[in-house]
């Protein structure tokens, strides 16, 4: 059977459905919205403004969004969150990390704290500087300025954070409009700088994240080693990719911030390339000391060359949380080439990023496995409160850490804005989130039904703020 995935890029194609569920959100009474390309098309068609169309540099330079634009972004992000996360939401309790608890606290914390941090960063580097943060990702691998982090600014900090606070009934729909604008403008500018195709999300462009400059792609393609399925080198590459991906999840407290895919890029031979950053050692987190002890670098970048024809690929999505899904689901047996590169520290210059041959991955795989076991043992000894607090940091600090680092405002955020402190309101909410199933039932229902993303009032003043700007 021939691959049909290129049909997905034809303008009138609606794509496949990856799930049976549908989304309603704020569109009660209208046809429910499915996942994928068709869902994106429907959501765009329901917009009241032009903000979901391809936007220009002049558009992203405008200081703030109008109320209709804010509401369109709110609705689209709500659908997009549902699209990428609704099936993941079935996974239940971790058995180890209280993830739902740390997630909701962190999201609400982000909505309260990020506006002043992002405004300060914009003040420091200007609009050009914010756009440049995104643009930097075009020429780098092993950078956390990537889909999931950029998406998180708007989808998590604004979308789900505001949704959680509304559900907790501590804010109202027309509160914090100015702050919402600050968060969403920052996201739009970073995403625009990164993508430079006018879209701000992968889902808006048929789940493609083809951001890297041709010169970088050419360099990377030259590093690909043949590894035919069933060969020892294929086994070695696949085991390494999986083990590094696992450690990247664990180091980020079972969240997707450790993984960053871009692509699919079409190679000269017709195969597809996925570029996968696996952040195995984030030095901002104290528990990463076990990774240091095993000489695990900040990031392993794994290049995966996929034979789409042999796979009879029907659709490939690199979604907005940086994860690749395909139909058929199992692309691993069709990986026919690969390479691994190392970025030792987050700020290692690109000129010092180096490749490791597949044949030499053995000792590095052992280091990853040792670090995984040590980190697991460390986490297993942490009490619930420690796990929730650390998980909050992974979200609240980790999601904007790459942008603050790139802008050079991280130290200022720590010293002048107490980045690592937890807002007293959030500290108090810690005791509320386990009551009446708030974290495990109420918030997930609000998020995944879409009923919790209340729109801003049509006549609301977009300058409305409850922030205590210092």
């Amino acid at each position: 059977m021939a691959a049909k995935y290129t049909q997905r890029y034809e303008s009138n194609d609606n794509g496949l459905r990856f799930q049976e569920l549908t989304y309603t959100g704020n569109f009660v009474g209208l046809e429910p919205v499915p996942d994928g390309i068709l869902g994106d098309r429907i959501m765009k068609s329901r917009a009241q403004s032009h903000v979901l169309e391809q936007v220009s540099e002049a558009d992203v330079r405008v200081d703030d969004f109008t109320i209709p634009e804010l509401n369109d972004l709110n609705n689209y992000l709500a659908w997009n969150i549902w699209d990428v996360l609704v099936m993941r939401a079935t996974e239940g309790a971790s058995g180890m990390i209280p993830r739902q608890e740390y997630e909701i606290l962190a999201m609400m914390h982000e909505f309260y704290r990020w506006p002043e941090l992002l405004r300060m960063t914009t003040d420091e580097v200007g609009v050009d500087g914010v756009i440049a943060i995104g643009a930097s990702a075009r020429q780098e691998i092993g950078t956390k300025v990537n889909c999931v982090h950029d998406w998180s600014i708007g989808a998590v900090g604004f979308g789900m954070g505001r949704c959680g606070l509304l559900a907790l009934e501590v804010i109202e729909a027309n509160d914090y409009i100015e702050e919402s604008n600050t968060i969403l403008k920052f996201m739009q500018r970073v995403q625009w700088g990164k993508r430079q195709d006018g879209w701000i999300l992968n889902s808006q462009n048929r789940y493609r994240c083809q951001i890297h400059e041709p010169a970088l792609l050419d360099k990377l393609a030259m590093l690909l080693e043949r590894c035919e399925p069933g060969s020892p080198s294929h086994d070695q590459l696949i085991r390494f990719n999986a083990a590094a991906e696992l450690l990247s999840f664990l180091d980020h407290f079972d969240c997707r911030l450790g993984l960053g895919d871009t692509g699919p890029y079409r190679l000269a031979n017709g195969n597809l390339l996925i570029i996968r950053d696996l952040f195995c050692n984030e030095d901002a987190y104290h528990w990463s000391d076990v990774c240091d002890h095993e000489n695990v670098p900040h990031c392993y970048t794994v290049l995966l060359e996929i034979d789409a024809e042999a796979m009879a690929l029907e659709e490939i999505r690199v979604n907005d949380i940086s994860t690749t899904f395909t139909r058929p689901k199992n692309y691993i047996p069709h990986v026919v080439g690969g390479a691994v590169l190392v970025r030792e520290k987050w700020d290692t210059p690109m000129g010092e990023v180096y490749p490791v041959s597949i044949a030499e991955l053995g000792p590095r795989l052992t280091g990853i496995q040792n670090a995984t076991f040590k980190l697991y043992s460390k986490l297993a000894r942490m009490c619930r409160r420690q796990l929730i607090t650390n998980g909050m940091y992974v979200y609240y600090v980790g999601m904007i850490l790459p942008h603050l680092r790139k802008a050079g405002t991280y130290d200022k955020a720590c010293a002048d804005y107490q980045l690592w402190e937890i807002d007293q309101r959030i500290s108090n909410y810690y005791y509320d989130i386990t009551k009446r199933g708030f974290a495990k039932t109420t918030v997930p229902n609000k998020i995944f039904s879409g009923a919790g993303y209340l729109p801003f009032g049509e006549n609301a003043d977009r300058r409305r703020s409850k922030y205590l700007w210092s």
Partner: protein
Amino acid sequence: MSIIAEGYNSFETDKTPEGTVMFLPDPKAVIGLLQSGKLKDHILLAEGGTTTFLAPALSMGAIGVLTLSGAPESHLGILSREFQIPCIMTTYLCDSDSRYVTGGNNGAHFAAVTAALNGKRVRLHCTDGDLGRVELLA
């Protein structure tokens, strides 16, 4: 073939791992299994569909996984695909109407599935794009 349970198939594979189902209730049980040296004798059964709980077992070569919740889009679903470890998620018993409910009170459902599978010798079938099957072996 006696199929006793089914669930979401994480990914399509011809692998048909066989082993005795072992329910792992907490991280201590995971560490204990690894230290016993018998990891590859067992099909692992976990309640959640998250990755961290089974992390070292996946890394050290688990042969097959069953979960009581989660989907292929869950972190464990993604990682099982990357490791090529057959994995059936949100497993339910074929002779029961009880099903997992997201965000619901699933305690009785989990207990029933666990009681029926734990300690049984099984083989996993994961060739179908959507449905994974658990065969009871004699």
